[in-house]
């Protein structure tokens, strides 16, 4: 049984311990700044990038508007091409379908292409419960699996590990599951990759069943696409006899030609490459070539619920590039595990609450607040998901789901809204603040530049004041000054 995100505390608590992990901070700052710079360089060289983004968003929006039609078209195309189509309402149904197919072939192991959706549904645990071992074959997923760890990034699940940690994991764990790492393994990336290659090769050659996701599913032709860097995916998609692909229903594109847009947007946004090394496309069964039994599991698992949300549905455009993670100043410091979800970072902060339902628990409800709303995510999103807009929208849903219950925050917001709901009340509150300010200014030291401040404060105020000096209200508000001096006209010259 592998580890799960169950039991992760709410974001502020999880972040507090992550922020104290100096190795994590260093690894992430290095990795995200490297990938940010690569992305910026390759996006900068595409003159029509903004038009491509808009095309990607428009294509996804149109597909989602007519999702029912395109899904039926996809099913027909797949069936015509010799694939077996399964429909899964939720994780349990999808897992059961995959387990049943694997069992029918009497196998006790499957090889896996890196896939977010199978992590979302907890497929590896479901297979393990049925006595079937799932081997992750993506290098980073392998590091996570061998380390009994959790993924912390959509594209680079082991981004929180550095090469010396990877070396340790390989040396310690590889031998338990197959070919051990060479005893003299160093932390040079090429040597680490070679060790993984040798370890995985026997699994590729032995396994008869493979499991994948898909980056895109073309309704018109029934073609599935996997975009990857390492070639492990190509191995899984071509060597085994049986291929089971679990595909979220939002992965649809109407036509083959639509891939033109997304295959430009995805690699540049994701790995910061003009083109990814391996793009595999397959259409059902090709007699005598590749898997001779092809299953496609079309998964809902909360997606139609997201589609029903007029503001939130734009999250279904997501092509899982992870550009939003790499630019996010919160993610860069807290890492992916703090989000307690398979989908971390800005996209996870909106997708997870919508898939699981706002109000599910305190951890889920903390995610829409795990952002300073700086907007860097929206700026880089290749399909123009306005993540800050959706975050604010979900915050309102969180608040609405707790309305009527007594809480300090509800009381504070109600009081602020009352005081600010009328200029006379505001003016009275300001006079009180000004009087307090006058008193404090007599006793407290002055910050440079004439901005008077208070130092550390106890109690709830410590949430601001234990690291930041506190501004002291001005003795006279602007409003009072304006009234007293007729907008400065009667002030002494």
């Amino acid at each position: 049984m592998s580890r799960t995100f169950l039991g992760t505390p709410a974001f502020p608590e999880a972040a507090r311990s992550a922020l104290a992990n100096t190795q994590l901070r260093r690894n992430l700052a290095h990795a995200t700044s490297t990938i940010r710079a690569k992305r910026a360089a390759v996006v900068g060289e595409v003159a029509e990038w903004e038009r491509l983004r808009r095309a990607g968003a428009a294509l996804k929006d149109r597909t989602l508007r007519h999702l029912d039609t395109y899904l039926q078209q996809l099913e027909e195309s797949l069936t015509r091409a010799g694939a077996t189509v399964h429909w899964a309402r939720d994780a349990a149904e999808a897992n059961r379908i995959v387990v049943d197919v694997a069992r029918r072939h009497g196998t006790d192991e499957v090889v896996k292409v890196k896939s977010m959706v199978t992590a979302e549904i907890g497929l590896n645990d479901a297979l393990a419960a049925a006595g079937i071992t799932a081997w992750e074959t993506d290098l980073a997923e392998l590091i996570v699996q061998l380390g009994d760890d959790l993924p912390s990034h959509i594209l680079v699940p082991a981004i929180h590990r550095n090469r010396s940690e990877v070396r340790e994991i390989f040396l310690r764990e590889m031998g338990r599951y197959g070919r051990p790492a060479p005893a003299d393994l160093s932390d040079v990336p090429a040597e680490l990759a070679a060790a993984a290659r040798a370890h995985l090769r026997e699994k590729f050659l032995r396994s008869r069943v493979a499991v994948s996701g898909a980056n895109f599913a073309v309704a018109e032709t029934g073609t599935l696409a996997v975009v990857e860097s390492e070639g492990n995916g190509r191995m899984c998609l071509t060597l085994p006899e049986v291929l089971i692909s679990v595909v979220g229903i939002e992965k649809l594109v109407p036509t083959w030609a639509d891939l033109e847009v997304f295959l430009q947007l995805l690699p540049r946004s994701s790995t910061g490459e003009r083109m990814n090394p391996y793009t595999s496309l397959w259409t059902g069964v090709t007699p005598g070539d590749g898997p001779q039994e092809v299953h496609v599991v079309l998964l809902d698992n909360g997606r139609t619920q997201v589609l029903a949300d007029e503001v939130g549905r734009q999250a279904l455009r997501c092509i899982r590039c992870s550009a939003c993670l790499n630019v996010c100043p919160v993610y860069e410091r807290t890492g992916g595990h703090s989000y307690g979800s398979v989908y971390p970072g800005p996209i996870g902060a909106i997708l997870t609450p919508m898939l699981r339902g706002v109000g599910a628990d305190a951890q889920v409800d903390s995610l829409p607040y795990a952002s300073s709303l700086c907007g860097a995510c929206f700026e880089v999103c290749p399909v123009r998901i306005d993540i800050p807009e959706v975050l604010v929208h979900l915050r309102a849903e969180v608040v609405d789901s707790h309305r009527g219950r007594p809480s300090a925050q509800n009381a504070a917001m109600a009081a602020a809204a009352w005081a600010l709901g009328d200029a006379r009340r505001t003016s009275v509150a300001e006079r009180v603040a000004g009087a307090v300010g006058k008193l404090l200014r007599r006793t407290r030291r002055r910050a440079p530049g004439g901005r008077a401040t208070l130092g550390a404060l106890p109690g709830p105020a410590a949430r601001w004041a234990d690291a930041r000096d506190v501004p002291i209200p001005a003795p006279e508000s602007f409003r009072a000054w304006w009234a007293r001096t007729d907008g400065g006209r009667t002030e002494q010259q």
Partner: protein
Amino acid sequence: MAVGLLVTCLNDVLYPETGKAVVTLLRRLGVEVTFPAGQTCCGQPMVNTGYLDEAVPLVRRHVEAFAGCEAIVVPSGSCAGSVRHQHRIVARRSGDPGLVRAVEESPPVYELSEYLVDVLGVVDVGAYFPHRVTYHPTCHSLRMLGVGDRPLALLRAVRGLTLCELPAAQECCGFGGTFAVKNPDTSVAMGADKARHVRESGAEVLVAGDNSCLTHIGGLLSRQRAGVRVMHIAEVLAATETPAALADPAAEVAR
């Protein structure tokens, strides 16, 4: 008709000198400024925390207060963004078609640098500020409004001012409104890096267009005894060759 100054609730109570600087600056440029007394707060703190119902009376106040102004000028990118983008969301939520219409018909709102550069068409506002300054582009002015390099152009035209480059300038300072207290550890971690970059810039004054972010960064710098003060860009642009601009920077503004 005159432009209405939306001073913002934060400036009203904590930083009235910023509001006075806007008045001084606009009058110097020949603009008639009014301060509609009915204004309170744009409602952004409520909206961004999820309290949309609580923001409805604030949006109503705002549109009533500023009706009849030729334009609204606000020394805050964040509040400008709130009025421009969030008021219609709040109005729709209220279910009051009258409020929806009032929001649509409300005068155009400009962040200060937008008003100076785009509406007045000035870059050199006749300011004098003989100090080493670095500029932090606040997220909402940069990414929500898209003010671009307008503030930098304004600062470059200030006599005596030396502009220092801020490393990683476009990265968020970590303030984020109620984020600063709901996620204080993450907020401070982000702010610590911003403060470090400010110190690395070699500037003596950190300037931005939002006093909210400056409260956070300035609070960190002041706690560190960093020897860098923070100022709103309006105060820099309002300064001229009078004793006030050369006043002892350690002295509290006289009142």
